């Protein structure tokens, strides 16, 4: 056979094999986690594992409820801060800013996206935690003594600190992707809207964002997934107090990734401990996958409506 054709077929096959290997890796990971958490799943019902907040490994109680609640709580706070911050910044950069401002700001944003999480964590400890402890917590807890502000945690290590650090970590990604998405909106759409007398903001709100909403949703999901699995930052500033279900943004939270990073490899003498921690990893894996799938499901529905 011709050598060129042989190479071609070889290239195709090896690329196919590699793609399959990469794709099957996620299935293998899920399978592996499931296998290793079998022991705890066999003893304790799934319901108790997911919803019980009783975590006493020595007594054989492995309720992940508090950790799952902690993860959701911190992520929700992070997204509540990050979404408006990122979208408005991206809109400014793509729709309003002068080209030179944009050319200057874009590399800085991309740089922020690439900084190691541990740096954000340290920054959280030295800057965000004192801010929350000395100013935000005393102010809000005293003036608004109700959900979600009432708390008796005066340390500053809390869900809000974690949320702020996470928000600043994921914002650069959301900004960067959203800005790219907005730039793919045809200029003619803006011209069409402006030429019936719409202002810039009306054009952005009614025409540009509408056209770009699929891509923006994707950008937000990307940020959400990252926030969900982020470990280092939450480990360092969330407080990580055991057996606490947060009732306030100022309560300590103990998200799943922090639990896994903190405890896996230690205290292995306790029976079922490692199985329970791997179960936590499986839950994290499943929830992240679910969020992604829900997100893409929304995208596909938008697309089939070809708006």
């Amino acid at each position, binding site marked *: 056979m011709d050598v060129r054709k042989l190479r071609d077929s070889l290239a195709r096959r090896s690329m196919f094999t590699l793609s399959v290997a990469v794709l099957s890796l996620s299935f293998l990971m899920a399978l592996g986690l499931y296998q290793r958490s079998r022991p705890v799943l066999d003893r304790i019902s799934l319901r108790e594992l997911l919803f019980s907040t009783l975590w006493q490994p020595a007594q054989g109680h492995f309720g992940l409820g508090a950790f799952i609640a902690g993860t959701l709580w911190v992520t929700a706070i992070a997204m509540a801060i990050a979404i408006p911050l990122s979208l408005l910044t991206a809109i400014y950069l793509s729709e309003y800013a002068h080209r030179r401002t944009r050319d200057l700001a874009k590399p800085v944003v991309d740089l922020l996206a690439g900084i190691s999480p541990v740096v954000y964590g340290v920054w959280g400890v030295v800057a965000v935690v004192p801010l929350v402890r000395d100013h935000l917590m005393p102010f809000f807890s005293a003036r608004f003594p109700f959900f979600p502000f009432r708390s008796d945690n005066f340390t500053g290590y809390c869900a809000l600190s974690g949320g702020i650090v996470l928000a600043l970590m994921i914002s650069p990604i959301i900004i960067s992707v959203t800005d790219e998405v907005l730039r793919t909106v045809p200029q003619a759409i803006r011209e069409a809207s402006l*030429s019936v007398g*719409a202002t810039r903001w009306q054009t952005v709100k009614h025409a540009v964002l509408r056209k770009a909403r699929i891509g923006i949703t994707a950008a937000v999901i990307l940020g959400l997934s990252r926030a969900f699995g982020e470990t280092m930052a939450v480990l360092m500033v969330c407080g990580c107090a055991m057996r606490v279900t947060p009732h306030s943004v100022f309560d300590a939270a103990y998200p799943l990734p922090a639990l896994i990073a903190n405890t896996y490899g230690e205290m292995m003498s306790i029976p079922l401990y490692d199985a329970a921690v791997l179960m936590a990893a499986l839950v994290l894996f499943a929830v992240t996958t679910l969020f992604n799938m829900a997100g893409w499901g929304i995208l596909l529905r938008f697309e089939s409506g070809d708006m």
Partner: protein
Amino acid sequence: MNVEYRMEEIQLEAFPHIQVQHLTVAYGGHVALDDISIDIPERCITAIIGPSGCGKTTLLKSFNRLIDLQDEVTVKGRILIDGEDIYDPRTDVSALRKKMGLLSQRPQVLPMSIYDNVAYGCRIHGIKSRRTLDKIVERELRSASLWEEVKDRLRSPAARLSIGQQQRLCLARGLAVEPEVILGDEPTSALDPLSAERIERKFLELKKDYAIVLVTHIIRQARRLADYVIFLYLGKLIEHGPADEVLNRPKHAKTRAYLSGHFIEDASP
């Protein structure tokens, strides 16, 4: 001299709606329009012709200040519309653009339903009443001869229409805000011949009520539609006058060369 005389005749019939005075537009260092002065008559179709890159679209988009969107653009000179300089810093740009309806090269429907596309401009300008909007949408769709085709699916996305229907929808959207001038930037260039003809017929109807400025690279289209013709070449105004004059008895060698399809470089001045 003959041309000058005829021009005055047209001006006597109609007050010049757009007056361009010593307009120079540059993008960065590149001069796109060089010292253009011209009056554009009311209730006429004015065609801007010339080879690609001659500044046709720039001239058109300077009328509704869409060139403001370009980076590093500088504008010198004045454009008077209804006697007011639109490049005055006090000008309300949105109000100006509402006056100048634009039909672009490729139909650009907004990402929403057919109904919402037509109602878009009215809603922007604060009309909320359902009944008023229904009336406007029906009137404009009928006037763009699109009503019969879409009346049963007003709620479906505008992107599902054919290209020809989309362009008529864009026309309806532009007319819904009751502009004074219609600007067309090669509005038939993306359309099939039949749809193009419908748009052309529509333009001939509309010129009873509007001043229409049409950028075109199709000389036959200019012959069919235009009352007045402007010929631009490399950002310079070479010749302008009544259509019959410019298209059939061009005075300038460059115009002659362009109209007969020769390379303009070859034409002796």
